[in-house]
């Protein structure tokens, strides 16, 4: 989101699902959407059925790669090197979309100079991807009349995740693959409403509708309506919060619907910090591990069936959610909990219905202004921006960049000069294997929401290794092994995966109670987004001693 907001001023995917279905090239970069974003992948498949070519860039030959016309298996953490090599090839092959670059972007010359060193040979040497495959990707993306660049945590969960995103955005700017039907940039969102959280200002530097906290004019609007001054400084992101906890600057924490005790990198450390707070409040529908550490637990409601409101999906479509059930027992509607907290603190917020909350938002967030409940109902959801009740904007964002009139083009989209940097932790003789983490189809994040029901596909955590590594380690499929990093160790059974190459192993964070993988991962975070480098740790695998009785 930070990357897109930096370049375009709005942090959201630029395309609609329909644009994914009606396009010529789809690049999934650092995304195993088939397993991790199965709903989005349906739209990708529709695009493929309609004739789009699919390119998958991922260190692993994933289930998504199986659908690809070409899979490029780069080394973990070499995304910028690959993107720069693609860019240089596009520039040298004369495939730059000149008219777009000239009218809608800034900083091309500097950017072009910065990627000049990335010849196919160098890119191939750094990324491990054969030069001909890089060339093919570059030409396919640049020559396509319409192309989609889609990414997810494989790009962002790095210590330089924002730079990774910027490197991909550069490619779209080079080829004019943004702001048009069928062309766009799409970060895939993992939660059904993670976009909605951002829309509503659940970001340390944004007010609802992506208005800057440090923008005095924007803030004054909120001050007036809310009847209280909004602090004029950006807040902390999650990583900064943990740092503040470490320094002792943050002593009280209110956690709503998150399980940081298990979702943070270097889990043992995170758990220690949460445990040493003065006061921890957790509001959740499950008694998570974090809730287990809390002084007060507020049982909330399941927002999709026990409360009224809206959600925003990956294509920025705001949709109504309607209440079907009352929350069980003492659990309460999340909004009611917050209003009640405010009342106890001496503020009488009076919202007779959720629609009143929404209408207040519409009065403050121009991009939501036109979305009345009645209209959301009538149209089956509306994509933002929607500035007034009698208009709808195009389903893709940033069409302004193509405008003939410079005034309506607005701020030019800047190319970003970013540097290739290897992962913080290199592999070495002691920790020779690269561990990357991710998701599997039938589990969800730390498993809080997915372990309550059975799935025939969910058989517990494994450490996935290539057939070659399994052979050289002398371990068999299903054999339990110890996985050791500089920070900790876990044990898990081996699963031999033909989609992995020698030296690369894979685990998930789905089963933290049994196999707490984040004891292995490194707490190296991106200073711009606060996201941790979950995708690159160095580990070794040890055979467990054979019990005497076997």
């Amino acid at each position, binding site marked *: 989101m930070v990357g897109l907001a930096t370049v375009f001023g709005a942090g959201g995917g630029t395309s609609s699902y329909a644009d994914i279905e009606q396009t010529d090239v789809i690049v999934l970069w650092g995304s195993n959407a088939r397993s991790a974003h199965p709903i989005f992948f349906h739209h990708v498949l529709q695009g493929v059925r309609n004739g789009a070519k699919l390119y998958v860039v991922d260190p692993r030959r994933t289930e998504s790669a199986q659908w690809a016309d*070409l*899979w490029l298996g780069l080394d973990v953490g070499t995304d910028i090197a690959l993107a720069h090599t693609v860019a240089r090839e596009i520039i040298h092959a004369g495939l730059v979309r000149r008219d777009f670059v000239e009218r809608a972007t800034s900083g091309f010359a500097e950017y072009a100079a910065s990627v000049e060193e990335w010849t196919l040979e160098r890119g191939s040497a750094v990324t491990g991807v054969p030069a001909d495959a890089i060339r093919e990707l570059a030409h396919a993306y640049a020559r396509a009349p319409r192309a989609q660049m889609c990414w997810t945590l494989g790009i962002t969960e790095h210590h330089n995740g924002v730079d990774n995103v910027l490197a991909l955005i550069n490619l779209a700017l080079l080829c004019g693959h943004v702001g048009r039907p069928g062309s766009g940039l799409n970060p895939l969102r993992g939660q059904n409403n993670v976009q909605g959280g951002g829309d509503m200002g659940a970001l340390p530097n944004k007010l609802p509708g992506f208005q800057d906290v440090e923008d005095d004019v924007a803030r004054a609007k909120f001050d007036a309506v809310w009847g209280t001054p909004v602090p004029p400084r950006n807040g902390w992101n999650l990583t900064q919060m943990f740092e503040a906890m470490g320094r002792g600057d943050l002593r009280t924490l209110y956690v709503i619907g998150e399980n940081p005790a298990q979702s943070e990198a270097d889990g043992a450390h995170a758990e220690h910090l949460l445990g040493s707070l003065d006061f921890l409040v957790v509001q959740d529908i499950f008694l998570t591990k974090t809730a287990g550490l809390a002084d007060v637990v507020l049982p909330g409601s399941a927002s999709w069936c026990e409360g009224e409101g809206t959600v925003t999906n990956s294509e920025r479509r705001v949709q109504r959610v309607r209440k079907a059930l009352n929350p069980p027992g003492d659990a309460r509607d999340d909004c009611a909990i917050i209003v009640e907290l405010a009342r106890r603190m001496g503020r009488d917020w009076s919202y007779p219905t959720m629609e009143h909350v929404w209408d207040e938002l519409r009065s403050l967030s121009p991009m939501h202004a036109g979305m009345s409940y009645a209209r959301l109902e009538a149209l089956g959801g509306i994509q933002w921006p929607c500035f007034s009740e009698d208009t709808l904007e195009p389903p893709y964002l940033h069409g302004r960049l193509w405008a003939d009139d410079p005034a309506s083009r607005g701020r030019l989209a800047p190319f970003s000069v970013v540097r290739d940097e290897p992962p913080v932790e290199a592999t070495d003789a002691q920790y020779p294997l690269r561990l990357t983490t991710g998701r599997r189809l039938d589990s969800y994040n730390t498993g809080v929401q997915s372990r309550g029901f059975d799935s025939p596909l969910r058989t517990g955590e494994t450490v996935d290794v290539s057939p070659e590594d399994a052979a050289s380690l002398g371990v068999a499929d299903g054999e339990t092994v110890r996985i050791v990093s500089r920070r900790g160790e876990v044990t898990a059974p081996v699963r031999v995966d033909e989609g992995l*190459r020698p030296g690369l192993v894979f685990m998930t964070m789905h089963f933290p109670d049994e196999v707490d993988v984040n004891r292995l991962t490194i707490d190296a975070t991106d200073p711009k987004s606060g996201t941790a480098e979950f995708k690159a740790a160095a580990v070794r695998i040890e055979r467990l001693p054979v019990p005497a009785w076997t």
Partner: protein
Amino acid sequence: MDLKIASASATDAERQAVDALLGPPPEAARGAERDERSHRVARGGASLRALRHLMLPVLHAVNDRVGWLSRGAINYVSQRLDVAPAEVYGVATFYALFSTAERPARQVHVCVDLACRAAGGHTEADLPPGAHASPCLGLCERAPALMVLEAGERPTRAVEAPVPRPRVAEVVAGGACGVEPAVAAAAPQTPDDSLVLLHRVGRVAPTLAGYLSSGGYEALRRAHEIGPAAVVDEVTASGLVGRGGAAFPTGRKWAAVASQPATPHHLVCNADESEPGTFKDRVLIEGDPFALLESMTIAAWATGCGHGWVYLRGEYPRAEATLRAAIDEARAAGWLGPRIGPAGQSFDVEIVRGGGAYICGEETAIFNSIEGHRGEPRNKPPFPVEVGLFGKPTVVNNVETLVNVPAIVSGGGAAYAGWGTEGSRGRKLFCLSGAVARPGVYEVAFGATLRHLIDLAGGMRAGATMRAVLLGGAAGGFGGPDDLARPLTRAAARAAGTTLGSGVVLVLDESVDLVDQMMRIADFFHDESCGQCVPCRVGTVRQREALARLVAARGAAPDARAADVALLRELAQVMRDASICGLGQTAPNAIDSAISRLGVLA
């Protein structure tokens, strides 16, 4: 059931069989060698899935090589074609000629269907151990019949008929099949210069030289002269309708495809002749293969098709070999290929061998089968003329329908329409089997009587008295001696509550157990229902059960049987009304006629 296909490995022989057809695995695709490059790039997706239509051929290749489809083979096929293992398994288990259980390389399929059991052949109950009970093998003129398939590096397929019971035991024990009689024996009318469809069968060698010397390819030459639209007009004027059973006007079908803007257009020749008692298409292909090729070439010219498929049932080894040789010869001489004749027509034909599934003769099931899916019929609309094979406008015609075309183009549609009757124009082949003196394929103009047809076949076999005649096969209906004077037209058949269908005329004498014949028909539909839609899947089972109870209760008081009689009637109504395709819709017909017209349960 836990299949665990994805972890199974193919044997070298299975791999070779697949690779012989598909070529070696492409660079770094699944199933390819693991090497440095394959750790970094993989090519796949659309380029692999574009080969999905080779699913059935590739399964045949493995089955021909090793005799069955192991999990390892299924896994390898799934990797090579980028199809989920479960889907390959679904296709592999759809066809009767395949097995996912290990079995000997040599398999003997003994026909237990109507004509063969009427001729004293085996039934399911008394087969020698190790033999398969097979539905009709299409050798009814010399029933009873069997077929031997032997897998190996040089797989063999052979049939033997007639095969008396002691011979069945010998062949099952390992004895070789005898030599097949010449095709002339199956067309007793020839030589007869008045024949239009059969005039070459048994008289002219099935070679290009023989064909050209007997008027071959003159119709194509004329078609090229008059142009596609005029060809369609002639076919429309001829009144030709489909001979597969549904009797749809061929000219209308062709005109519809010719006018479709979507491209490419496809031509499918339905040679999946599986209606019990039917063998005319086999005789046509074995006796005059170039006539089919010329007819297809004309059809393609008229409708704008660049490619034709002949979907040939897997139980016809001699027809396949004959047609394959003819295609090779035609291609070598430029009668198939990118530039045919001065008109420069581009057209080629490939054979798709069926896997033993009656349903694949249904015009949309045939598309799914060719495309590499389970051969289940599609819902209509959209109709094949708009959305057919690979989703494109498609002409699908039966073999016999097509071979009428040269005569129509050469002699003109009006002349052709002079044969037959008002509602049934032209000439028709009938498959005479059972208790006639000279069983075989007979050609007459529509309107000839059933008695005339039986007279052509030499009358009843010596000493035999007619008890019943099955018209149209298992999907048709029974008649009796009262029907002999009835003209063979669609209208007359309809009036008699039956159908001419695919031209089956199975004559049954007093020695045949009609209850057994009726139960066999019930078994046939039960076995051949593809299971896709409930009315047919459940209906064919319940129909068989109700019949079995009625047979067991023969002689009981009518009250005791009333419930099952009512159930049969109700099932028939549901199947006719609600089945997706003709299989379920016609499954009750012959049974109904056996009960109501022949009184077999009385």
